[in-house]
């Protein structure tokens, strides 16, 4: 086999691809060929490195040099300087703090130093389209170990001992769930991977599938062996074309090696897996709706019991787990339950992947041990708030979750502690908000989402969320009444108790947590007709301070509504009637004369 002295890893995750990483790869190949280095340097596309905001990311090994925002035009210099002459290019390295202005190596970047990568172990490290790279990193060894020396019951015991809980949101203990399906009688059983990932802002599962598709397939196979299933489905939303393409390649390569199919590794165990593309309805992530959708029916939840373990896909015993849950399984089998359960808290073991987004410096994908504090995630890993503004809240758990405040920053991240605060772990969305975010507006945003995504089966969810949304729209338009707050709370309670599935049961959470922790903002909207964050356009007013204005005319020239009048070198005035509150004038004013309230 060909030996390469250096490997250039270029991120091929969706974020970096849209930043131009495909061109970067082609350019590297061209440049290396031109310099006749293509036989000694390998260019590889990998999965997500997590630091999406600084992409396209390039890592050069063996040194492990980390380059950010690499463009096609940087490639010639990188090849000439780093690859050919051995002089790393500091201009493209991560810009650190004052003590360490450039940080050349991956592991030294604060974003990575607090992370613990298990589910993401291979993401950004291997070529997801090459099964050999997965095998080189102990891939399919967990399956081999299980098939050659463990009984199904032993596998389930190992899973129970690991303490792994479902990463799809509810946190149900995985080993226990498997034991139900294993105990269920039936000649045909299914395992299913839930890759619907519908939460706004979440992209954990997409990144795992794009960066390390084999680990999910291997996890499903181990589960299938433990539960007596021989067929699997991966339900992946069609909006994830790259993930689907990589899964297809992975399945084809595993089939070629005989790792999928009949009599795997010379045993009686056989397994085939299919991909089902979903149309991206949020409710289709709910397990019973998801199975209906695979069967070709309309995706609507049904009452449980019967649970999938007894009557699931085509009424056969089935087990459904989330992408990240499956991804952890091979690692637990290779390294043992004890290793896994040594990380995390008492009841929440291991790690959790979060998609860190919003007003934080380093948005991206992070995997952290359970028990870490929100402060560590947002400030140490995420680098704090964008433009050094003030932290206001963090929304955790997506539309089913809640908003937490400054007071909760030192709360430890675990299923129990987050639930106790009124939020949930959820699938891993973390949206950070600063002082310019209006919490009523945030509640409205999430409620609009669930309102649209409600399947309509339960009246409380269908109509209740609609009524709640109407109230929020009134409040943000300055037409709210104080009684509205009580009505909101009443409706919230009814929607929560009167809905069949998690969508309705949790839909009021964003409203309830903001009402609990940011009630004064609601009151300001209703009583003072003011939006303290200056975000609700109907309630803000722009004005120019005549004492500060220098009459440069910049605001007037940039006003799309032509509502600013004034002579050159004389104070200008905004016509509030015509103003559309776009904020352009405030942005362009060189002396800060425009204020908003």
């Amino acid at each position, binding site marked *: *086999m*060909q*030996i*390469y*002295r*250096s*490997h250039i*890893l270029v991120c091929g995750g969706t974020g970096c691809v849209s930043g131009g990483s495909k061109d970067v790869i082609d350019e590297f190949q061209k440049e290396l060929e031109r310099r006749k280095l293509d*036989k*000694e340097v*390998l260019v590889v596309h990998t999965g997500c490195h997590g630091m999406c905001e600084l992409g396209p990311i390039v890592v050069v*090994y*063996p*040194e*492990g040099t980390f380059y950010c925002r690499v463009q096609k035009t940087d490639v010639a210099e990188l090849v000439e300087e780093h*690859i*050919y*002459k*051995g*002089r790393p290019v500091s201009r493209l390295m991560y810009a650190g703090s004052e003590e360490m202005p450039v940080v050349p190596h991956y592991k030294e970047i604060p974003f990575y130093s607090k992370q613990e990568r298990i589910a993401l172990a291979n993401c950004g*490290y*291997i070529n997801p389209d090459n099964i*050999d*790279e997965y*095998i*080189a*990193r*102990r891939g*399919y*060894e967990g399956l*081999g*170990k299980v*098939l*050659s020396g463990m009984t199904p019951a032993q596998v389930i015991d190992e899973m129970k001992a690991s303490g792994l809980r479902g990463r799809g949101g509810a946190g149900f203990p995985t080993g226990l769930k498997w034991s139900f399906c294993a105990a269920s009688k039936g000649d045909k059983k299914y395992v299913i991977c839930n890759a619907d990932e519908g939460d706004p802002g979440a992209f954990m599962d997409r990144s795992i599938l794009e960066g390390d598709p084999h680990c999910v397939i291997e996890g499903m196979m181990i589960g299938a062996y433990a539960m007596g299933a021989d067929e699997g489905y991966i339900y992946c939303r069609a909006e994830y074309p790259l993930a689907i393409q990589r899964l297809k390649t992975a399945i084809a390569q595993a089939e*070629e*090696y*005989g*790792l999928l199919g009949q009599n795997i*590794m*010379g045993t009686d165990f056989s397994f085939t897996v299919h991909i089902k593309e979903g149309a991206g309805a949020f409710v289709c992530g709910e397990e019973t709706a998801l199975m209906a959708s695979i069967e070709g029916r309309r995706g609507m939840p049904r009452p449980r019991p019967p649970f999938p373990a007894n009557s699931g896909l085509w009424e056969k015993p089935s087990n459904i787990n989330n992408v990240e849950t499956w991804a952890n399984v091979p690692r637990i089998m290779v390294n043992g339950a004890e290793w896994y359960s040594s990380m995390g808290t008492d009841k929440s073991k291991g790690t959790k992947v979060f998609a860190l987004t919003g007003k934080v410096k380093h948005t991206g994908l992070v995997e952290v041990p359970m028990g870490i504090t929100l402060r560590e995630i947002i400030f140490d890993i995420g680098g704090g708030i964008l433009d050094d503004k003030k932290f206001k809240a963090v929304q955790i758990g997506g539309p089913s979750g809640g908003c937490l405040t400054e007071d909760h920053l030192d709360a430890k991240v675990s299923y129990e502690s987050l639930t106790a605060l009124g939020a949930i772990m959820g699938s891993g969305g973390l949206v950070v908000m600063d002082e310019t975010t209006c919490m009523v507006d945030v509640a409205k945003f999430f409620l609009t989402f669930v309102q649209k995504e409600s399947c309509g089966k339960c009246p409380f969810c269908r109509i209740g969320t609609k009524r709640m949304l109407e109230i929020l729209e009134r409040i943000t338009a300055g037409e709210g009444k104080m009684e509205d707050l009580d009505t909101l709370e009443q409706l919230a309670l009814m929607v929560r108790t009167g809905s069949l599935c998690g969508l309705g049961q949790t839909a009021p959470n964003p409203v309830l947590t903001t009402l609990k922790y940011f009630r004064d903002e609601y009151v300001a909207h209703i009583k003072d007709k003011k939006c303290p964050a200056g975000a609700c356009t109907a309630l803000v007013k722009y004005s120019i301070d005549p004492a500060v204005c220098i009459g440069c005319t910049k605001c007037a020239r940039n006003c799309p509504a032509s509502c600013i009048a004034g002579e050159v070198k004389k104070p200008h005035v905004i016509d509030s009637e015509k103003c559309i509150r776009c904020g352009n004038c405030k942005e362009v004013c060189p002396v800060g004369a425009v204020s908003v309230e």
Partner: protein
Amino acid sequence: MAKIKSLDDLRKIRESTSDLSSARTGQGTVVVVGMGTCGIAAGAREIMNSIMAELARRGITDVAVQTTGCIGMCEKEPLVDVIRDGSRVTYGPVTPGDVATIVAEHVVNGRVVDSLAIGRAD
């Protein structure tokens, strides 16, 4: 593609692909070739090619080969450093004919080639 029929088959593939990951860990023995203008002018490219060929011939996959810029000893170029067991030995000027000796003696067996060594740092 051969089928994987057992855990042993899987391990064999893993061994044959171990280079894929070892080149990305940066641990173990490191060989560094001076590729400053001085090194290139003195024939460092050829030395690099010989090193890669020699490692490939011997099937050595756990050695990292790196390049570096000028270190100031331009008249001794091409320079090759071997970092092994915590110490760094500099060889120069190295000819393509010396490469096999350095790889066999120092890289593989850990014996410094005194006749070619010009510096050592622990």
